[in-house]
């Protein structure tokens, strides 16, 4: 594989339960603050797990170009966060002049509109339910809306590979640039808090009624979150030509599939390890200073991820600090991988590892070097893992720009 073109990150936007913007998000991630609370956007009381990472401060984003103002919340999350990333990159004045590749991951798309439409169908009948509710339901329409709002041209790809979607989307944008198809990409992932999803994960007994404790012996499930993570990727020479800030570099990407079970990961972690190995090979086998784990807090994921990491790193496993940010902001599904790529970048930029909060009891099945406290460290290269329903595995490597 020839990798002649380097791909750098020149802007980020992040929206989670912690708040809007990179300063507040990194501040709370670094200090190990939890923004998980009782879910308020619908009646979650009847469910086993009723906690989540909702965006309490976010309602909608201003729309300047889109005529249809009645967009699904997912479109608002995406447009708001993309706007932040574009501003952060300083490319806002030039973005309309260039062909741009948009690559996003989502699991739900406009599911919230779909839920309302379903309710209207039951109440009013099929012919009287509000048709405009479903115009933004399909999972690629949020990207279409983003194109229109920013008057972009180019192409897009929306992938839905469950919880690996966000990492896949960044990986696809990375490939599109390094293989010379585009010089500029806006990529990442997003998802909303939906009752449909909470009920679904509850029915699978995957949601904790307590605290989310990745890699802890007493872990008993995940908490859901909502939000978006967007990155601006550029080909290095293109970024340098416009004197862009360079926050970091995407160094490698790998993917694989378990071919095992629709909801359970393949327990040995061998398939997940294949994705990690591919990413490491792609990046030229760098030393990994920190692993931002998928770390959902479910029994099966965390044990599998441990096996995968140990398979890849062997004796060096104990040297590499590992943490998951999901206990702080929840599992953002299609947004998770993108948010975690951004947080991985922050660990390089700020030389600090965010803690794996709520961790109390060592689990021999998860014998990793869990970062229990915030730690300063000279982080140069980070591995971020994502694994999803359907056996989707993705790994991405972010490194300091030199």
């Amino acid at each position: 594989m020839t990798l002649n073109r380097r791909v750098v990150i020149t802007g980020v936007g992040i929206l989670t339960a912690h708040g809007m913007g990179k300063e507040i998000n990194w501040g709370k991630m670094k200090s190990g603050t939890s923004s998980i609370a009782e879910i308020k956007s619908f009646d979650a009381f009847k469910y086993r797990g009723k906690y989540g990472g909702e965006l309490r401060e976010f309602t909608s984003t201003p729309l300047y170009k889109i005529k249809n103002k009645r967009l699904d919340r997912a479109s608002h999350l995406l447009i708001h966060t993309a706007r932040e990333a574009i501003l952060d990159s300083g490319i806002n004045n030039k973005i309309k002049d260039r062909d741009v590749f948009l690559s996003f991951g989502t699991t739900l798309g406009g599911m919230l509109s779909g839920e309302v439409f379903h309710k209207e169908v039951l109440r009013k009948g099929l012919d009287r339910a509000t048709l405009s509710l479903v115009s933004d339901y399909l999972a690629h329409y949020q990207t279409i809306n983003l194109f229109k709002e920013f008057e972009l041209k180019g192409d897009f790809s929306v992938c839905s590979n469950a919880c690996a979607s966000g990492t896949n989307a960044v990986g696809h944008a990375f490939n599109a640039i390094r293989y010379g198809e585009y010089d500029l990409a806006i990529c990442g992932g997003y998802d909303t808090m939906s009752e449909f999803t909470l009920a679904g994960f509850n029915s699978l007994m995957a949601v904790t009624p307590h605290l989310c404790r990745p890699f802890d012996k007493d872990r008993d499930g995940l908490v859901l979150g909502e939000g978006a993570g967007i990155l601006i990727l550029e080909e290095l020479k293109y970024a340098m030509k416009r004197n862009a800030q360079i926050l970091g570099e995407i160094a490698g990407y790998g993917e694989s599939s378990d071919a095992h079970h629709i909801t359970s990961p393949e327990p040995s972690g061998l398939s997940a390890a294949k994705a990690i190995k591919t990413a490491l090979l792609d990046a030229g086998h760098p030393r990994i200073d920190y692993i931002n784990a998928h770390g959902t807090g479910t029994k099966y994921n965390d044990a599998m991820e441990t096996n995968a990491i140990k398979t890849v790193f062997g004796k060096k496993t104990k040297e590499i600090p590992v943490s998951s940010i999901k206990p702080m902001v929840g599992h953002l599904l299609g947004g998770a991988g993108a948010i975690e790529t951004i947080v991985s970048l922050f660990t390089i930029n700020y030389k600090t590892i965010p803690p794996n909060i709520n961790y109390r009891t060592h689990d021999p099945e998860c014998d990793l070097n869990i970062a229990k406290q915030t730690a300063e460290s000279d982080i140069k290269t980070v591995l971020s893992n994502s694994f999803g329903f359907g056996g989707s595995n993705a790994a991405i490597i972010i490194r300091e720009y030199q």
Partner: protein
Amino acid sequence: MKRLVLTGLGVVSPIGTGKEQFWKSVVEGASGIRKITKIPSLTEYYGGEIRGFDVDKYVDDRRFRRAADISKYALAAIKLAIMDTAIEVADNTSLVMGITHGALNYTQEYHWGLLKESAEVSPMLFSDSVLNAPAGNASICFGINGPVHTIIGGAEASIKAIMLERQLLEKGIAEKSIVVSTEEINELAFSCYLRKGMNQLSEGSCAIVIEKEDDVKSQPYCYIAGISSLFNPASPDTALTDAINQCLQKAGLKIKDIDIVITDSRLPDTLLNNIPIGSIISLTGNAFSVTSLCHVVLSAIIIKTGVLPNAIIKNKTFMSDNIKNVMVCASDREGIVFAIILTSYN
């Protein structure tokens, strides 16, 4: 650059399952548009419904008997495509699925079950309703360990799936690749599209196997000579012209070299220059992303057999006796466009 060839086809369509039955219906002009029977509220409407389909004929694994129809159609189409080319699925096989709606029937059933509260709702309805469930089921069923992706979009989704597979093959990430698209008829979606003025919707699945020319063991159907996809909401017409020109450039062809265009879109006469046009929609109905892949399958068979099926061709005056290059393209009102050119194998 290694040339990519199309080596296997699988079809589950309202006009027949399997490429032979599909092609026979196309040549005979046999329509699959009939009154809907599956959904009680839609029995007065017409659509392209799959009837008499039994997944057990194609897949031995009983786990998939309860899967959503959208998954079952995909499993059958993939199985047929694999059998058509006799590839061995291995670690380096990838699968990319292009879909538009996903498993809407399970989504609807699960959500209504929640709303009614008293109903017993199976967790399987949830897990099989996620957008990548058909792709996940396919990877499990056929043991596909390489990259497996679900690309969401309208008619262009399956073409974007081919583009992603092209990248995986050309960069050596995958050695063999399967592209599939699948849809199922759903009451809510059907009703919404009817209210928007779209009718004769359909369901089914198409799958193709793509390999590098150097690796093939069987006679390919055709080359994938060029492919392009663009989005320009401010100027949809410009986007279409640009996509076609890009595609022609990648294929090293000029528009006069194209023998037939397969499309369900209205294209400007100035662009086409009297090239014959065909579409499968009059026979099968519209299944969005599946229809685009169905057009690719149709084009591959036209190239391989050299037969132009009269029933689906307009503008027959300028039909060539020697079909070498077929372009499949489409544009929508939003400005999302694609073009792909298939060229006869030497």
